[in-house]
């Protein structure tokens, strides 16, 4: 047996997400990412004496949305706390956070394959503020400070130590990212740091009851790197234990270039944050009505949509997963299925041609030039036999992309793509076709049924490819079998 298989891995994740509010958590200056250095600031952000924070209502709404989406209890009486530490990118000398009364507690999310999901506990979600940015490599003698980000609202989502592998950790962050994007509370961009993840990792022998010593890993700026860092750390810890070394409780930093972690600081020199209640911000009392109001504003969540698509619309798990993987795709699909009842076809159009357009043009589905009305029309045109599927994908759909102001049917008519459904016209064509091959008709009547293809081909040729094949077949059969 592989030595690594004799260990169990225990992982808990702390995810910080920057909220997409217009202004900061405790002051009215802009909270947008980037901008010229030190322009998104206020006296509160700068920590000037006498300045007082005032809480941003939307921070609470966004944090509650995430809490509700993660099946948490919402705390009724909320206090803020000061977490004291001295660092140049934190001008006040303390971070305003929540310590003893996190807004959301005791929830869970589901990860993994649909129908076989694993429940991962959410210990708490609390509201706090971000620090500014330190720039170490621009000036040879000084560290430069940009406070644009200081005071930006964050929520910290702390999981239970329920994750048992790097893959589960990957699935967990993917799900968190999907949720915050779906709720429109964070853009989920790990590269720009609007979603950040710290991992607490320990290993223990499989029969061991107590947790091993945990190591915290930071600085993983993509979901893939979270997985890499955890994989490295698991191996490092097991190798150390196997060599008879002891794991020290410490913080380690991930190096994306060589995929390893190295020690940042040990717990002995750990901070003493001296938390105490923030007297400048009065308590927040969350009422049932406030919770209900937030619930009303929330969109259906990806998991709920999965259930709907699979159980009510009878789509495959694969289709449902693609349709719920991005919020805008599910919004587009939701709109489309209010207009057509052919759900399978609606799903196929989005998963096929529409997604292909998005991928080729590297664009979001909201920039897709055709409306759900166009797709509804296209589905209807095919379902009623007015135009065949191949002609739509090869001719009508590309043409519509160039002329999205046209209706699908209007453009199909212009391009002469509508199938001939007038049975008297098709009947005339059928008669002509049969008259052309009297011997073949005789052979057919003698049992050579394969000749039907020849007659059909002739009818299609004479109609310029537009005769509705179903109607043409029916008429030809009537004529051949009846007479």
């Amino acid at each position: 047996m592989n030595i690594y298989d004799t260990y169990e891995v225990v992982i808990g994740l702390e995810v910080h997400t920057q909220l997409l509010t217009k202004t900061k958590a405790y002051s009215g200056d802009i909270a947008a990412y980037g901008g010229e250095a030190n322009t998104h600031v206020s006296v509160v952000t700068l920590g000037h004496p006498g300045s007082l924070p005032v809480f941003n209502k939307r921070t609470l709404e966004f944090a509650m949305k995430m809490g509700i989406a993660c099946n948490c209890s919402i705390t009724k009486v909320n206090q803020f706390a000061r977490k004291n530490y001295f660092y140049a990118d934190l001008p006040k000398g303390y971070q305003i956070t929540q310590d003893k009364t996190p807004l959301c507690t005791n929830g869970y999310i589901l990860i993994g394959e649909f129908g076989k999901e694993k429940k991962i506990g959410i210990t708490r979600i609390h509201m706090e503020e971000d620090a500014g940015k330190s720039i170490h490599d621009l000036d040879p003698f000084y560290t430069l400070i940009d406070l644009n980000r200081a005071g930006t609202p964050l929520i910290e989502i702390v999981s239970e130590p329920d994750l048992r592998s790097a893959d589960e950790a990957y699935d967990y962050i993917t799900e968190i990212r999907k949720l915050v994007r779906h709720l429109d509370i964070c853009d989920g961009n790990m590269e720009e740091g609007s979603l950040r993840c710290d991992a607490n990792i320990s290993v223990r022998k499989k029969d061991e009851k107590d947790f091993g010593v945990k190591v915290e890993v930071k600085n993983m700026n993509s979901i893939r790197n979270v997985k890499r860092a955890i994989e490295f750390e698991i191996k490092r810890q097991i190798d150390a234990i196997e060599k008879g070394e002891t794991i020290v409780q410490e913080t380690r930093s991930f190096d994306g270039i060589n995929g390893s972690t190295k020690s940042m600081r040990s717990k002995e020199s750990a901070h003493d944050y001296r938390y105490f209640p923030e007297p400048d911000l009065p308590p927040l009392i969350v009422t049932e009505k406030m919770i209900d109001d937030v619930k009303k504003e929330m969109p259906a969540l990806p998991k709920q949509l999965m259930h709907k698509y699979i159980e009510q619309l009878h789509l495959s798990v694969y289709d449902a997963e693609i349709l719920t993987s991005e919020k805008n795709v599910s919004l587009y699909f939701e709109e489309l299925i209010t207009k057509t009842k052919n759900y399978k076809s609606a799903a196929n159009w989005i998963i096929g041609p529409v997604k292909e357009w998005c991928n080729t043009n590297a664009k979001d589905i909201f920039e897709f030039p055709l409306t759900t009305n166009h797709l509804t029309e296209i589905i209807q045109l095919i379902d009623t036999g007015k135009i065949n599927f191949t002609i739509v994908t090869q001719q009508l759909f590309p043409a519509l992309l160039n002329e999205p102001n046209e209706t699908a049917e209007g453009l199909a008519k212009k391009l002469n793509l509508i199938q001939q459904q007038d049975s008297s016209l098709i009947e005339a064509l059928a008669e002509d076709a049969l008259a052309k091959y009297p011997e073949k008709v005789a052979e057919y009547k003698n049992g050579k049924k394969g000749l039907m293809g020849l007659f059909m081909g002739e009818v299609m040729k004479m109609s310029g490819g537009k005769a509705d094949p179903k109607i043409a077949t029916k008429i030809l059969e009537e004529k051949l079998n009846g007479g």
Partner: protein
Amino acid sequence: MKVDKQLVDKLANLSKLNFTESEEQEIIKDLNKMVDFVDKLKEIPVDGVEPLIYMIDETNVMREDEVKMEITKEEALKNAPLADSDYFKVPKVLKKK
């Protein structure tokens, strides 16, 4: 509570401050005086009295999420001990390897 060298060292470390030996002795003396002064409050019985955190009784003081820019970059940098035209400048935080 007694303020000693160990406590002052710890606080100095947390605040990133440095003192000379004689300064530290002065600080220990001063802080002990302050603690003694505040200790007088302990003479008052406070059993069953909730700690007072907030000076006002109000709750849910919130503002709408509306942008209000009140100071410029130039104003922001003006009071800093050290700055260039864009950034605050502080002693190197990371040590050279």
